[in-house]
């Protein structure tokens, strides 16, 4: 079920929230967690029921491993390694088998496997570090499947979810939380159905017809995708935040205005924050700290950076394009570190522009079906294909008039006033609206929600981009 479906908003959500507060008001607190757990499983199965046994198997196995690890017996470390290997094996089989052979590339990627696998690995690591409290199977099951964050995160830590779940304060009616939740849900829904889905039209046309793109079309397509991805995923994350607040649960922010960043480091401090946090906690520090302590050469200090970013790229998918995407970001971060060491500074507008252009270029590898297409797109963006910059602009101004008898110079150009207006609006929203800010006025939230509902009735429903990862 999609957050941006009318079934979810008008049937599933009122039923689940209503049931939750009915149980709370009747004092049936023991049934609250099972109710949310069942609702979350239904939510997952509604999309594709055949993956339900897999997630159930994964939850059960991790739960057992978690219990074995927390006993702190002789084999605690072995259990931890076995659990991590189990999770990674599932992920590798379903996600990366296409890398190894053609025969198994038919394996269908189970929904949300990257998210729930990482969440469970971190849980096992926390068990090993004795950072977890006693928990029941149902509690643990809800930690993994809690429907607001199940499909595309944020990736939660056990210690930030479980205490909230078990405290009595959570099981009370808090109108301010509910209102904040409504506002955040409305904001996220607006970003998804009104902004991201409109940008998708330009991005899709562009990336499906890379060979025919001229300079301006290539830029419009790539920028459309950069904003589409941001508004799609940030919108999802804000909806998740809002939905969690309906149940008095606060989950971490996943985005903090990444497109305002003036350096690549700032960008990653605001983009998919729970994923970068995961890699930082469970991979970067374990790799980097020994190197830092060993006083080895600076070159070695950058190795963990590169490993982490290549793996972040690979986490998104099994293609070479993701590998290049990760490599590019890793290299950029290393260069940024060196730049900082030299204490060099750039004017703010220039540093913002450079960062945005780099990020936009790297997204081309993220979106393109293969490396050749990505390079073709970048060539077109550099003016190496199709009509030159002057011709492209002339054609664009011609199309503003929408002359009914006009014949486009090459194929169907989408560089029109309307596409430009949509992109400029997206840029303004990205730069001026604060991500995840729940202090939206009730009026603004309600109008955004009404607008989004309207858009939903007249457009095709589209899944979130991060469902593919």
């Amino acid at each position, binding site marked *: 079920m999609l957050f941006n479906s*009318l*079934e979810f908003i008008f049937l599933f959500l009122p039923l689940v929230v209503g049931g939750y507060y009915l149980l709370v008001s009747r004092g049936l607190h023991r049934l609250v967690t099972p109710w949310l757990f069942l609702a979350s499983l239904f939510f997952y199965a509604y999309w594709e029921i055949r993956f339900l046994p897999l997630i159930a198997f994964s939850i059960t196995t991790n739960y057992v491993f978690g219990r074995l690890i927390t006993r702190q017996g002789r084999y605690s470390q072995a259990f931890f390694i076995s659990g991590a290997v189990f999770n990674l094996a599932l992920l590798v089989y379903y996600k990366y088998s296409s890398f190894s052979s053609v025969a198994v590339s038919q394996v269908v990627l189970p929904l949300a496997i990257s998210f729930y696998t990482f969440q469970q690995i971190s849980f096992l690591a926390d068990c090993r570090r004795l950072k977890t409290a006693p928990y029941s199977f149902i509690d643990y099951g809800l930690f993994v499947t809690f429907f607001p964050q199940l499909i595309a995160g944020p990736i939660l830590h056990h210690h930030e979810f479980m205490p909230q779940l078990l405290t009595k304060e959570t099981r009370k009616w808090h109108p301010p939380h509910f209102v904040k939740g409504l506002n955040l849900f409305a904001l996220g829904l607006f970003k998804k159905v009104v902004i991201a889905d409109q940008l998708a039209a330009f991005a899709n046309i562009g990336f499906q017809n890379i060979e025919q793109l001229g300079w301006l079309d290539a830029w419009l397509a790539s920028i459309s995708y950069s904003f589409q991805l941001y508004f799609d995923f940030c919108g999802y994350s804000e909806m998740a935040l809002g939905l969690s607040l309906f149940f008095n649960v606060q989950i971490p922010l996943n985005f903090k205005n990444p497109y305002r960043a003036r350096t690549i480091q700032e960008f990653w401090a605001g983009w998919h924050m729970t994923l970068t946090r995961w890699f930082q906690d469970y991979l970067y520090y374990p790799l980097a700290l020994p190197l830092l302590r060993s006083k080895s050469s600076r070159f070695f200090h950058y190795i963990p950076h590169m490993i982490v970013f290549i793996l972040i790229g690979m986490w998104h998918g099994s293609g070479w394009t993701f590998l290049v995407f990760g490599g590019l970001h890793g290299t950029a971060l290393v260069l940024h570190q060196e730049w900082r060491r030299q204490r060099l500074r750039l004017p703010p507008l220039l540093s913002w522009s450079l960062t945005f252009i780099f990020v936009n270029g790297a997204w081309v590898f993220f979106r393109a079906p293969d490396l050749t297409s990505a390079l073709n797109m970048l060539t077109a963006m550099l003016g190496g294909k199709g009509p030159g910059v002057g011709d492209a602009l002339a054609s664009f101004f011609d199309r503003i008039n929408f002359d009914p008898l006009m014949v486009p110079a090459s194929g169907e150009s989408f560089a029109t006033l309307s596409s430009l207006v949509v992109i400029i609006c997206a840029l303004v929203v990205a730069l001026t609206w604060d991500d995840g800010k729940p202090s939206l006025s*009730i009026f603004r939230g309600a109008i955004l929600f009404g607008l989004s509902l*309207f*858009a939903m009735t007249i457009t095709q429903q589209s899944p979130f981009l991060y469902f593919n990862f």
Partner: protein
Amino acid sequence: MRKIILFTALSLFTFAALQLGLSRYLQRRVADGTWIESVASKSELLSQRPDVRLILLGTSTTQNHFNTNWMTNQGLSSFNFGLPGRYWEDFPSIIDSFRTSRASHVMLSLSARVFLYPVSCPAFRTLYDVTFFYRLRGLECWRKFNIKHLFPLYSDWPFIGEVFRPTKDYFATTLLRYKTDLANDPRLVNYVRGNNDRSVVTYRNGDGAVFSDSVAQAPAESVQLRLIDKRKWPLDPEALRFVTALGREVEAQGKKLIINLEPRRANETILINVELLKNALGPSVLVLTNHALTIPRENWADFTHLKPAAAQVYTELVTCQLKHPDTPPSCQTFLEKLASVLP
């Protein structure tokens, strides 16, 4: 709690105001003489034609194969309710939208093939479709019900960009040689969509036309006519039940149903046992058997649509058949014309 009520009321007000605004926009746009390919838009167009006696209902083939201006000039006041991307499963709610029309006849143009296989659940469902299919097939199609269909406007609205797209698009290269013809067509161009290989023109009166040479340029073996003879096959009972139920809906509106079995494809003709269909529908329903027409490949624009010149002759043929249902030989000249290569 007050804030939650305020939020709900405000968002519903915004939603309703936008729905109303869009609805008004659509009415104004149709009043200005332009429309988009949706049930809501064509219904609005039809409501502006109180003189219509015959509604032509069907898919893209209906939209692109009839010149209703010409039919009206021949004394058969007609409206083209063909809609691209539709299947006959979507017809119940469309027929329901004819209630306010004063037309006396509804002609359903269908491929003969549909009577050989069970009917699927409709792709574009309204609440009316769901109840219609519930009466016919129980809960089978209820599962696919989308809550969206409870909203006032039909859910068949295309992508938002389509709604607000300028009605006058550009003419692709396929249309350059027809530029003068199109400019002189009394039906007036509504908009053009497509690409350099195939252009679909819609006219302001609800008709359409496909301009393409894709069949003429396709390898001869791919356009070789295949005759599929299913005359000894029984017709699918579910399909028959469905078409008779559609007939009942039309009759309930005080209109008469006509079935037009249309030519199938440039490379395929299906023959069915028409007598079984006639028996199921009863003597009050006229069945036109155009599914076995011989039409050379040069007269097809693409595999499923005739070129405008062939569509004009086809219109003349159907008009003749409607005017002289008991004397089919009088329409022989149109059959012969359609069997020859048209300019």
